[in-house]
Protein backbone atom coordinates (compact mmCIF):
# COMPACT_ATOMS: atom_id res chain seq x y z
CA UNK A 1 0.00 0.00 0.00
CA UNK A 2 0.99 3.65 -0.36
CA UNK A 3 1.91 5.38 2.87
CA UNK A 4 1.88 9.20 2.85
CA UNK A 5 3.34 11.62 5.37
CA UNK A 6 2.50 15.29 5.79
CA UNK A 7 3.85 18.31 7.68
CA UNK A 8 6.36 17.48 10.44
CA UNK A 9 5.70 13.75 10.06
CA UNK A 10 6.98 14.07 6.50
CA UNK A 11 9.96 16.10 7.69
CA UNK A 12 10.93 13.66 10.45
CA UNK A 13 10.67 10.61 8.23
CA UNK A 14 12.30 12.47 5.38
CA UNK A 15 9.98 11.56 2.54
CA UNK A 16 6.42 12.36 1.49
CA UNK A 17 5.36 8.94 0.29
CA UNK A 18 6.55 5.34 0.11
CA UNK A 19 5.33 1.95 -0.95
CA UNK A 20 5.03 -0.43 2.03
CA UNK A 21 4.48 -4.18 1.78
CA UNK A 22 2.78 -5.25 4.96
CA UNK A 23 0.41 -7.79 6.39
CA UNK A 24 -0.49 -5.51 9.32
CA UNK A 25 -4.13 -6.00 10.31
CA UNK A 26 -4.72 -2.53 11.74
CA UNK A 27 -3.23 0.96 11.59
CA UNK A 28 -1.66 0.36 15.02
CA UNK A 29 0.04 -2.78 13.72
CA UNK A 30 1.41 -0.83 10.76
CA UNK A 31 2.68 1.90 13.08
CA UNK A 32 4.46 -0.74 15.21
CA UNK A 33 6.14 -2.15 12.08
CA UNK A 34 7.25 1.30 10.92
CA UNK A 35 8.56 2.30 14.37
CA UNK A 36 10.72 -0.82 14.46
CA UNK A 37 12.43 0.15 11.21
CA UNK A 38 14.64 3.12 12.03
CA UNK A 39 15.02 5.95 14.57
CA UNK A 40 13.47 8.51 12.20
CA UNK A 41 10.22 6.48 12.16
CA UNK A 42 10.45 6.03 15.93
CA UNK A 43 10.77 9.82 16.23
CA UNK A 44 7.80 10.47 13.98
CA UNK A 45 5.49 7.99 15.71
CA UNK A 46 6.67 8.52 19.30
CA UNK A 47 3.44 10.22 20.40
CA UNK A 48 0.36 8.84 18.67
CA UNK A 49 -1.90 11.36 20.42
CA UNK A 50 -0.19 14.02 18.28
CA UNK A 51 -1.00 12.14 15.07
CA UNK A 52 -4.00 11.63 12.84
CA UNK A 53 -4.49 8.96 10.21
CA UNK A 54 -6.54 8.79 7.01
CA UNK A 55 -7.39 5.58 5.15
CA UNK A 56 -8.08 6.08 1.46
CA UNK A 57 -8.45 9.81 2.16
CA UNK A 58 -10.99 9.48 4.99
CA UNK A 59 -10.09 10.18 8.62
CA UNK A 60 -9.90 6.96 10.64
CA UNK A 61 -8.90 5.61 14.05
CA UNK A 62 -5.66 3.84 14.87
CA UNK A 63 -7.52 0.60 15.55
CA UNK A 64 -9.17 0.63 12.11
CA UNK A 65 -8.53 -2.47 9.94
CA UNK A 66 -6.30 -2.14 6.87
CA UNK A 67 -7.99 -4.83 4.78
CA UNK A 68 -8.62 -3.47 1.27
CA UNK A 69 -6.98 -0.12 2.04
CA UNK A 70 -4.74 1.28 -0.73
CA UNK A 71 -3.58 4.57 0.77
CA UNK A 72 -2.67 5.34 4.38
CA UNK A 73 -1.69 8.87 5.42
CA UNK A 74 -0.16 10.06 8.71
CA UNK A 75 -0.13 13.70 9.73
CA UNK A 76 -0.46 16.06 12.72
CA UNK A 77 -3.81 17.63 13.66
CA UNK A 78 -4.97 19.84 10.82
CA UNK A 79 -4.66 23.61 10.89
CA UNK A 80 -6.78 24.86 8.00
CA UNK A 81 -8.98 27.94 7.74
Amino acid sequence: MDVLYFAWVRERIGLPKERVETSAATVSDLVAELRAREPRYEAAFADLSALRVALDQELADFDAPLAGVREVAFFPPMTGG
Partner: protein
Amino acid sequence: MRIAVQESSFDLGAEANAFAAGVAGCGAVVTFTGIVRDVAQGDLDVMEIEHYPGMTEKAISKIAEEAKSRWSLGDVLVIHRYGRLAPGEQIMMVATAARHRKDAFEAAEYLMDYLKSRAPFWKKEFTSDGAEWVESKDEDEDALRRW
Protein backbone atom coordinates in the same frame (compact mmCIF):
# COMPACT_ATOMS: atom_id res chain seq x y z
CA MET B 1 -21.88 25.05 -4.67
CA ARG B 2 -18.30 25.79 -5.63
CA ILE B 3 -15.19 24.45 -3.92
CA ALA B 4 -11.76 25.61 -5.03
CA VAL B 5 -8.42 24.45 -3.65
CA GLN B 6 -5.79 26.54 -5.35
CA GLU B 7 -2.31 28.00 -5.08
CA SER B 8 -3.21 31.29 -6.75
CA SER B 9 -4.71 34.26 -4.97
CA PHE B 10 -8.39 35.17 -5.31
CA ASP B 11 -10.30 38.43 -5.41
CA LEU B 12 -12.58 38.58 -2.36
CA GLY B 13 -14.70 41.36 -3.84
CA ALA B 14 -15.18 39.70 -7.22
CA GLU B 15 -16.00 36.38 -5.54
CA ALA B 16 -18.46 38.02 -3.13
CA ASN B 17 -20.22 39.89 -5.94
CA ALA B 18 -20.47 36.81 -8.17
CA PHE B 19 -21.77 34.75 -5.26
CA ALA B 20 -24.37 37.34 -4.20
CA ALA B 21 -25.56 37.79 -7.79
CA GLY B 22 -26.34 34.09 -8.11
CA VAL B 23 -28.56 33.56 -5.09
CA ALA B 24 -32.06 34.61 -6.11
CA GLY B 25 -34.55 34.28 -3.27
CA CYS B 26 -31.92 34.58 -0.55
CA GLY B 27 -32.11 37.59 1.75
CA ALA B 28 -28.82 36.96 3.54
CA VAL B 29 -25.24 36.48 2.34
CA VAL B 30 -22.39 35.94 4.81
CA THR B 31 -18.72 35.80 3.88
CA PHE B 32 -15.71 34.93 5.99
CA THR B 33 -12.20 35.70 4.80
CA GLY B 34 -9.06 34.43 6.49
CA ILE B 35 -5.97 36.60 6.18
CA VAL B 36 -2.34 35.74 7.03
CA ARG B 37 -1.62 37.83 10.07
CA ASP B 38 1.74 38.55 11.49
CA VAL B 39 2.69 36.42 14.50
CA ALA B 40 2.95 38.00 17.93
CA GLN B 41 6.62 38.87 17.46
CA GLY B 42 5.85 40.86 14.32
CA ASP B 43 8.40 39.15 12.14
CA LEU B 44 6.53 36.63 10.02
CA ASP B 45 8.23 36.40 6.66
CA VAL B 46 6.04 33.85 5.00
CA MET B 47 3.47 31.18 5.75
CA GLU B 48 3.57 27.90 3.90
CA ILE B 49 0.41 25.86 3.64
CA GLU B 50 0.73 22.17 2.85
CA HIS B 51 -2.28 20.08 1.93
CA TYR B 52 -3.27 16.57 0.92
CA PRO B 53 -4.29 16.72 -2.75
CA GLY B 54 -7.33 14.57 -3.36
CA MET B 55 -8.37 14.30 0.24
CA THR B 56 -8.63 18.08 0.62
CA GLU B 57 -11.36 18.45 -1.99
CA LYS B 58 -13.24 15.42 -0.63
CA ALA B 59 -13.06 16.63 2.97
CA ILE B 60 -14.28 20.13 2.07
CA SER B 61 -17.12 18.76 -0.08
CA LYS B 62 -18.23 16.57 2.80
CA ILE B 63 -18.20 19.54 5.21
CA ALA B 64 -20.14 21.70 2.74
CA GLU B 65 -22.71 18.97 2.07
CA GLU B 66 -23.20 18.53 5.81
CA ALA B 67 -23.79 22.29 6.16
CA LYS B 68 -26.37 22.15 3.35
CA SER B 69 -28.19 19.32 5.10
CA ARG B 70 -28.25 21.15 8.44
CA TRP B 71 -29.33 24.60 7.28
CA SER B 72 -31.60 25.88 4.56
CA LEU B 73 -28.99 27.34 2.20
CA GLY B 74 -29.28 28.80 -1.27
CA ASP B 75 -25.60 28.34 -2.03
CA VAL B 76 -22.17 27.66 -0.53
CA LEU B 77 -18.70 28.73 -1.67
CA VAL B 78 -15.34 27.61 -0.26
CA ILE B 79 -11.97 28.78 -1.60
CA HIS B 80 -8.80 27.63 0.18
CA ARG B 81 -5.24 28.32 -0.92
CA TYR B 82 -2.04 26.37 -0.36
CA GLY B 83 1.61 27.20 -0.98
CA ARG B 84 3.58 30.23 0.18
CA LEU B 85 1.70 33.28 1.44
CA ALA B 86 2.98 36.60 2.76
CA PRO B 87 1.46 38.45 5.75
CA GLY B 88 -1.69 40.29 4.65
CA GLU B 89 -2.51 37.82 1.90
CA GLN B 90 -5.91 36.16 1.88
CA ILE B 91 -5.71 32.45 2.74
CA MET B 92 -9.28 31.38 2.22
CA MET B 93 -12.91 32.40 2.16
CA VAL B 94 -16.32 30.88 2.63
CA ALA B 95 -19.66 32.34 1.59
CA THR B 96 -23.16 31.21 2.47
CA ALA B 97 -26.56 32.40 1.23
CA ALA B 98 -29.90 31.75 2.89
CA ARG B 99 -33.38 33.22 3.15
CA HIS B 100 -32.71 34.15 6.77
CA ARG B 101 -29.61 35.59 8.40
CA LYS B 102 -29.44 33.01 11.19
CA ASP B 103 -28.97 30.14 8.74
CA ALA B 104 -26.34 32.03 6.74
CA PHE B 105 -24.35 32.96 9.87
CA GLU B 106 -24.51 29.55 11.51
CA ALA B 107 -23.58 27.69 8.34
CA ALA B 108 -20.58 29.98 7.77
CA GLU B 109 -19.37 29.41 11.34
CA TYR B 110 -19.88 25.67 10.97
CA LEU B 111 -17.86 25.63 7.74
CA MET B 112 -15.04 27.57 9.39
CA ASP B 113 -14.95 25.37 12.49
CA TYR B 114 -14.72 22.22 10.38
CA LEU B 115 -12.29 23.61 7.81
CA LYS B 116 -10.03 24.57 10.70
CA SER B 117 -9.79 21.08 12.21
CA ARG B 118 -11.04 18.58 9.63
CA ALA B 119 -9.69 19.71 6.26
CA PRO B 120 -6.14 18.43 5.61
CA PHE B 121 -4.14 21.65 5.64
CA TRP B 122 -1.02 22.34 7.72
CA LYS B 123 0.51 25.76 8.23
CA LYS B 124 4.19 26.46 8.75
CA GLU B 125 5.39 29.90 9.81
CA PHE B 126 8.79 31.20 8.71
CA THR B 127 10.14 33.98 10.91
CA SER B 128 13.57 35.46 11.50
CA ASP B 129 13.86 32.93 14.36
CA GLY B 130 13.31 29.97 12.08
CA ALA B 131 10.42 27.84 10.90
CA GLU B 132 7.67 26.32 13.00
CA TRP B 133 4.55 24.28 12.29
CA VAL B 134 1.42 25.96 13.61
CA GLU B 135 -0.05 23.78 16.35
CA SER B 136 -3.73 23.01 16.48
CA LYS B 137 -5.52 24.63 19.40
CA ASP B 138 -7.71 22.88 21.93
CA GLU B 139 -10.27 25.65 21.46
CA ASP B 140 -10.57 24.77 17.77
CA GLU B 141 -11.33 21.15 18.64
CA ASP B 142 -13.74 22.34 21.33
CA ALA B 143 -15.51 24.55 18.78
CA LEU B 144 -16.70 21.44 16.93
CA ARG B 145 -18.67 20.25 19.92
CA ARG B 146 -21.30 22.94 19.66
CA TRP B 147 -22.63 21.53 16.38
